[in-house]
């Protein structure tokens, strides 16, 4: 089974369903923003949104009412401040209440690794003594059968869909990304279905340093979406638009400003 090369609109329509558990991953670099906006446009609801570092595109999905729950480890606008739509949902239940399931980066990274490995859980040292243990049921103790030592277990994420953005794919649907690639490989390998948006589709994938290649047969769909990671960056294509991240702060602080922004920038 090779990846289907399709459009962003068709891919989201086919792969993302109401109620899905979905990760749009990217660790500062290569954030699949265009795909997030397409999900808003198609009006998906009751999504469980998973991401280590939900940033402004998750703030937008939450503000637009797509999410029922957020599974995450650090929810902020990096270098700027809070995610105000996230806060408004958590603190005031607007546009509706948002359940949260909160981990550390190490815990989320291990949950992605367990998901990619087809295991129900992963083992790590972590969380001991923190208050996260009291509020997050997906943290458990586990005993080493050889030494008796107590460690921490975190479960598989149970992802229905993973969406990532990569620099390139070839015409067969093999995907190539390079630079800082976070947990994107784990997200795709750990999900039942996957969509990769790419800057461009090329005839041949020239090897790059620190590349990660996902063969076509582990990807469900590929869509060419130039600029699909803006305002984050795509190494070799464009830089991070730091002004856009700063500009998000005043828009997101105010429900009306946000609603107007959504109408003019995403839904129009």
């Amino acid at each position, binding site marked *: 089974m090779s990846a289907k090369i399709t459009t962003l609109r068709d891919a989201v329509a086919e792969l993302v369903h109401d109620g899905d558990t979905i990760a749009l991953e990217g660790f500062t670099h290569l954030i699949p923003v265009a795909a997030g906006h397409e999900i808003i446009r198609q009006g998906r609801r009751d999504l469980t949104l998973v991401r280590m570092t939900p940033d402004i595109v998750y703030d937008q999905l939450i503000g637009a009412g797509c999410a029922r729950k957020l599974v995450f480890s650090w929810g902020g606008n990096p270098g700027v401040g*809070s995610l105000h739509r996230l806060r408004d949902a958590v603190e005031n239940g607007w546009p509706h209440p948002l359940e949260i399931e909160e981990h550390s980066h190490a815990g989320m*990274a291990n949950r992605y690794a367990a998901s990619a490995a087809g295991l129900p859980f992963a083992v790590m*040292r972590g969380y001991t*003594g*923190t208050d996260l243990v009291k509020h997050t049921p997906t943290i458990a103790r586990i005993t080493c059968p050889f030494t008796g030592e107590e460690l921490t277990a975190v479960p598989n994420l149970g992802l229905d869909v993973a969406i990532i953005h990569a620099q390139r794919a070839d015409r067969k649907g093999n995907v190539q990304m390079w630079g800082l690639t976070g947990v994107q490989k784990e997200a795709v390998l750990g999900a039942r279905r996957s969509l990769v948006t790419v800057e461009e589709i090329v005839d041949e994938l020239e090897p790059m340093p620190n590349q990660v290649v996902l063969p076509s047969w582990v990807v469900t769909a590929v869509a060419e979406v130039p600029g699909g990671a803006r305002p984050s960056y795509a190494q070799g294509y464009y830089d991070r638009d730091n002004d856009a991240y700063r500009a998000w702060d005043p828009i997101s602080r105010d429900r009306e400003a946000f609603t107007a922004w959504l109408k003019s920038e995403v839904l129009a």
Partner: protein
Amino acid sequence: MTDFAPDELLTIAAARELTDGTTTFVGIGPPGAAANLAQRTHAPNLVLVYESGAIGAKPDRLPLSIGDGILGETADAVVTVPEMFNYWVQPGRIDVGFLGAAQIDRYGNINTTVIGDYASPKVRLPGAGGAPEIAANCGEVIVILRQSKRAFVERVEFVTSVGHGDGSPGYRERLGLRGRGPVKIITDLGKLEVDPETREFVMTALHEGVTREQAIEATGWELRFADDVATLPLPTAEELETLRSLKA
């Protein structure tokens, strides 16, 4: 003397705490600026490790985020995020973890999660990020934070990252935490260090021109002072210039 902002004072003081040749886990904001400044001044062989996967980064400008492309491009090695936490942080390979905080208490416990009730919070903060495991596993932790009664509290409302718990002897050892935990807090007023006897943070130094009263006023617990409170020299023109050129 040049004028400087409180964050510059903080950053420069923190940079001075980093020893050349050590490995440092670097977050965003003042900790990142401090580590980059140290590498550019007295610690050229400081190894900067970023949770985004860059090991041994040597950025020629201040990274705009922990996932800035400059980090991967200048790093000795680039690894995935699961590898970073499992193979590098977890086994205690990193000497110094450099953390910020929203709240910290007298025993160095850190809150970056929530103010108020967890279920219906007054302020929802960004959350844990890499901090809990950095605080647990790095050789030691240095916290960087502007000093105020809001931030320096008697008891944090949520323990995101464990310091010295309730201050009882062997608290960290009982939890199986391997690193020494927070040992210093660098603030815009001076420096606090952990008392090895009581595990309480005491003020061991003040920046030039800062009074004890200012420090007491900016601390939410009954602040103790070391027998000898040192005076930290003000930022030099060279330090300020280097820091500002990094941000340019």
